[in-house]
Structures are given as structure tokens and as C-alpha cells.
């Protein structure tokens, strides 16, 4: 077994689902409740094997729908358990009302979402419409570029969610099939190290603490609901230091440090592409090829989309001349996709703003190629040179 940068651990050949299942095994949560849905099923199935082999102490609950899966997670978390689940697409959509209950009750549930297009029509392949639809539900959202990051993010998510400064649920995403079903080399940590990193779970206000009875979710009308939402706003806004600290601590044990964003050849870049998930790997190649041709281009990868790291994004993008945002989901009738809208809004008050354009791409699993991203970067260069935007919203890889 190869040693990783002098640290403990080994390299395994795992797809994204297997990497997350392996991390879940090492975390050894108290409860997992899930319902099968492509392309997530593989992850939960692998976890079920760990259960049957007696490698975990998890209560593994199979249910009749994702709504019930999230409900069971909420019940178990309120009771005081360390709780995880996984889903995709319409499974996440069916959880919708329960997502809000989980975040409002400040229950630190960790969920892996294998990104898949929402119906209709039926499609089982990757886009971000599922996760982006849940972006306002009060969950922290961490995107992964590859199986390694999915593994790393899941472990960090537990520590982030359970931090007393946070106490919020976390969604860790990986692109369906592109990451979830592609086998990569994944450097895994030793079981003991993962256990030590996440630490023993100390529930806050558990229902099972019968000597301190508590109430979850009572009627909360115009008298206090607003104040409670205000505290939730503050809670998620306060997560940044914790997400960063956990990312740094994770770096110390793994050699892989994480931040809210990742920059690639950005220092002197004039033109930048912004992306999330597996596309960032493709974008790095596009940046390399254009750099070889003398173009000053770079990539800004958003790892943490919720909470939205506004300050860091301003810092990364304001010095640029042009920004091409890649959106893998549509906000129908909106001005561009969700990533574009947030970025434009964040840069609104900057004294000198770059030109910003948006590209929809990859809906329903449509492949994105290096050339597509080069095209996006060359287009923003063209916009800057002309000094005006003729078209804010473009499409990559679309037949029309």
C-alpha cells in the first residue's frame, strides 16, 4: 500500500459512491435511513454490506420513500444520534419540506447528494438542478470535483455540522455517474484517524435526555418565527470560519487542505471561468491549454456554495477583466443560472467590476468538453475587448 505524503492511509480504487460509503463506514454513524435512487443506490448498498459484515454499529433503516428517509433522519438526530443519508434528484425533491425541518431544528444531519437532473422528462444523468433547488433550504452545501473530494468532504461535513457554532445539516454533492460511477484512485485515511478527527458525538438537546425534556418544532407564528429565522440566517453566515478551520485541520491529517474556494492559475489571470463539481477538472485542462497559447486565464472553483462565500469571491474576481460562469442548472425565467446570479450580485458594489457572462451547460448529463470551456473563456475575452456584452446567457454543448 502506497503511503500518502508520509501520512498514514492507503490508496484504493473507488468510484465516488464507494468512496463516500467507505467514509461513512469510517465515520460509523448511529443511524442511516435511505431509499434507493439512481445513481445513489450503489453508495447505500455498499454501506449495507458494511452493516451486514458487522463493520459498523449503525442502525440502517430502509423506508418507503425519501420523504420518510429524511423524516427518519430528523427523528434520529433529534433523539441525539449521529445521522447520515444519501439521495439524488427527485429523491431530494421529495425530501423538500423535511429539508427545512432539519435545518430549522438545527440538526446536524450529513447527506450525500449524487447530482442528477430533475424530471421531467425522466433523466438519470448529472446536472445540478436537484441541489440548486435546495439551496435556500438552510443546509450547508459542499461540491466535490472528484471521488477524492467526495470522500474528504463527507468526513469534514460531519465535523462542520456538529460544531456548536454551526449545528446545521450539510449536503455534500458529487456529480452523478461522472464521479459516482467512475473508479479513481482515492487516498483513504486510517479508520482510527477518521474517528479521531470527527470525534465522539455530543448531541445538544437530545430527546433521549429524559432528565432535560425538550420540544422540537412547536407552533411558531408571527410572534417569534421571524426571530427564529433571523437566528438561522446568522447561524449559516457564521459557518465560514468553521468550514475553513475544519478544512485546515483536515489538511494536517491528510495532506489535502480545503477552503471555501479553490483557485487555479488565478493570480495573474485576466479571464476566469467559474464552475462547480467535476467540470472543474475539465476547466483546469482548458486553462492549461489556453495558457500554452499565451492567454492569461484561470479557474475559480466554488466548493462551498451555501453559505455563499461572498467576500472571498469578490477578492478572487474583482481584479479580473472578464468572468465566464458555468451553470449546470437553470433558474427558469431568472436572469441566468443560480451561480451567475449570486456572483453578479456579490460583485455589484465593487468599484471596478469585470464583465460577467453565463453559460448553461451539461443539463441531463450532456458532456462538457475542454473545447467548450476554451470557447467560454475566449468569448469573455472577446466581450472585454469589445467593451460590451451582447449576450449575457450562452449555451455550451447544445444543439440548436
Amino acid at each position, binding site marked *: 500500500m502506497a503511503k500518502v505524503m508520509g501520512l498514514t492511509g492507503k490508496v484504493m480504487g473507488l468510484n465516488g459512491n464507494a468512496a463516500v460509503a467507505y467514509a461513512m463506514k469510517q465515520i460509523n454513524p448511529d443511524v442511516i435511513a435511505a431509499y434507493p435512487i*439512481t445513481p445513489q*443506490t450503489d453508495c*447505500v*448498498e455498499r454501506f449495507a*454490506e458494511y452493516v*451486514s459484515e458487522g463493520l459498523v454499529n449503525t442502525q440502517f433503516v430502509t423506508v418507503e420513500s425519501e420523504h420518510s428517509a429524511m423524516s427518519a433522519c430528523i427523528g434520529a438526530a433529534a433523539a441525539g444520534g449521529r445521522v447520515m443519508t444519501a439521495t439524488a434528484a427527485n429523491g431530494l425533491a421529495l425530501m423538500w419540506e423535511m429539508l427545512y425541518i432539519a435545518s430549522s431544528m438545527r440538526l446536524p444531519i450529513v447527506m450525500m447528494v449524487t447530482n442528477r437532473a430533475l424530471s421531467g422528462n*425522466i433523466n438519470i444523468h448529472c446536472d445540478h438542478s436537484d441541489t440548486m433547488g435546495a439551496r435556500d433550504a438552510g443546509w450547508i452545501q459542499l461540491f466535490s470535483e472528484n471521488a477524492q473530494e467526495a470522500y474528504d468532504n463527507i468526513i469534514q461535513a460531519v465535523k462542520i455540522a456538529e460544531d456548536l457554532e454551526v449545528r446545521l445539516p450539510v449536503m455534500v454533492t458529487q456529480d452523478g455517474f461522472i464521479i459516482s460511477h467512475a473508479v479513481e484512485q482515492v487516498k483513504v485515511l486510517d479508520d482510527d484517524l477518521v474517528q479521531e478527527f470527527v470525534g465522539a458525538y455530543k448531541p445538544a438537546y437530545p430527546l433521549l435526555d429524559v432528565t432535560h425534556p425538550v420540544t422540537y418544532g412547536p407552533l411558531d407564528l408571527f410572534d417569534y418565527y421571524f426571530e427564529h429565522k433571523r437566528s438561522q440566517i446568522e447561524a449559516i453566515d457564521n459557518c465560514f470560519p468553521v468550514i475553513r478551520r475544519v478544512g485546515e485541520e483536515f489538511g494536517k491529517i491528510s495532506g489535502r487542505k480545503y477552503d471555501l474556494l479553490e483557485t487555479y492559475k488565478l493570480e495573474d489571470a485576466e479571464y476566469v471561468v467559474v464552475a462547480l463539481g467535476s467540470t472543474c477538472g475539465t476547466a483546469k485542462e482548458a486553462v492549461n491549454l489556453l495558457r500554452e497559447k499565451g492567454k492569461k486565464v484561470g479557474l475559480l472553483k466554488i466548493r462551498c456554495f451555501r453559505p455563499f462565500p461572498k467576500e472571498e469571491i469578490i477578492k478572487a474576481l474583482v481584479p479580473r477583466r472578464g468572468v465566464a460562469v458555468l451553470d449546470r442548472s437553470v433558474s427558469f425565467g431568472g436572469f441566468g443560472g443560480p451561480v451567475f446570479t449570486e456572483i453578479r450580485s456579490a460583485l455589484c458594489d465593487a468599484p471596478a467590476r469585470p464583465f460577467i457572462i453565463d453559460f448553461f451547460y451539461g443539463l441531463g448529463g450532456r458532456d462538457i468538453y475542454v473545447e467548450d470551456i476554451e470557447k467560454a473563456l475566449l468569448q469573455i475575452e472577446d466581450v472585454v475587448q469589445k467593451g460590451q456584452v451582447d449576450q449575457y446567457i450562452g449555451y455550451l454543448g447544445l444543439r440548436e
Partner: protein
Amino acid sequence: MDNPFDLSSDIAWCPGCGNFAILKALKSTLSELNYEPHEVVLVSGIGQAAKIPHYLRVNVFNGLHGRSIPVAFAVKSANPRLVVIAESGDGCMYGEGGNHFVHAIRRNPDITVIVHNNQVYGLTKGQASPTSEEGFVSKVQTLGSLSAPFNPLSIAIAQDASFVARGFAGDIEKLKEILKQAITWPGFALVDVLQPCVTFNRVNTYTWYRERAYYLDVQYDPEDRVKAFEKSLEWGEKIPLGIFYRHRKPTYQEKFYALVSYPHLLYRERAVEEVLDRELQYFQ
């Protein structure tokens, strides 16, 4: 003779799947009942069974997992001239769609619900489904399913469903007879079809069913609800097939005043034209 419901398309089921027989039985039934493809709507959800509308020439509504029954109910209400069939698997109809199943029976819409019951999740590759036997071992339920199986027939009869039957994919001729009666029955008609899954269910195989299944005989009275309930509990050594229960009662379409007395959506276009004609005559 060519069956007007035949459609040449690639079929994404495993060789030997019980779904092929159900597809064949359904196509023959619709053809022998002299329906035209344009008169039939097949509504399905998600799952292997839910692919069936793609494989025959009919109007298709393929929606979400578990949600075929409410859509079928609404289609029938909007256009009562259509033959409306909701068709999906046990996971879709009895699991995620279980709530719809129970409450549709209460309303008694004139639709047929055909459930391919293979006692396993086929599309997601072999987990225990709502009708899996307790102890059924799968890749997820490695120590066996802990839940008691859902009994669709008992639940339907307990709810006084208008028509309740069970068929077997291993007997196309008899299945056709059952489907014919179900489809022409006015009111909610359930046909639970035992469907061997050759890939993921190695317990409830063709042989397993053949050794146990028998048809209710001519002495059996499908009008007797208590007897029907008793029969619906029979499972294991002996598994009854056929029409368990029949009870003619007003359908939702017959009971709901708006659907009886007012023009259905079907007539809306014509109604608008009539109003327009009337209004326009003042300008002539």
C-alpha cells in the same frame, strides 16, 4: 392479424422477465376488446414495470415514482371517454405511491390499476420492496427484510375496492381474461400480477409460483366481501389467483355532480366555440 397496439421498440427488460408476458397480455386484451390505440391512456411511474407504456402503441403519461394513480384519476375525470390504466410495479404503487393507492380506492374512479408485483425493486437492482417476504435477503437487507409484506388485496378489499383480482405472468391466457374484466369494469379495478423477476428475486421464481398458484373455482362467490378478505389472506403453500372481489357501486365520475351535470373538459373547446358563435352573431 396485426395487433394495432404493437410497437417495434427496443425493450430494456432482462430476457425471461415476467414483464414480457404482461405486455403481451395487455396488448392482446386491448386489441380483443376492440379499442383503438387513441382511446387508451397508460399512466406509469418509475421502475421496470413503469417502462411498459413505452412498449405499446397508446397514449402515454410517464410521471414520477409513486404518482401514477392520481394522474390516471385526473385523466379519467377530464375525459371519461378514455380507457385509463395506471400501470407500475409494487414499489411504485404500494410503496412510494401507497397513500395514493389507499385513497384512490375510497374515491372509486373508473380506472384500472395494474401492478407488476415481483416482490423486489428491479430498476435499482434488487432491494427489498413493499411486497418482499419478511426475511427476504438483498444487497441492502443483508440480514433479511425486517418488515412484513404489504398485502394489496387485503387492503383493497378492506377498503371496499370495486374490483380486486390477482393474475400471474406465467399464464397469459388467464391474465387476459382477468384484464378484460378489470378494464371493462366500471370503477376502481386492481389487478395485482405476480411477476417473476429472473435477475433479482431468486426466491419467488416461475417454479415457486407455479407450485403454489391455483385459480378460484366457479363455486367461489366474488360478491362476498368477507370471503374475499379471507381468501386475500391466503399466501404461502397456496396462492389463489382470479377475481377475488367485485362490488358495483357509483364511480367518482358518476357521483361527482360537476362531472355528471356539467360539460367535461372534453367539451370545453366546443363550449367556447358555441359561446363565441353566439357572441359573434351580434356583429353579423
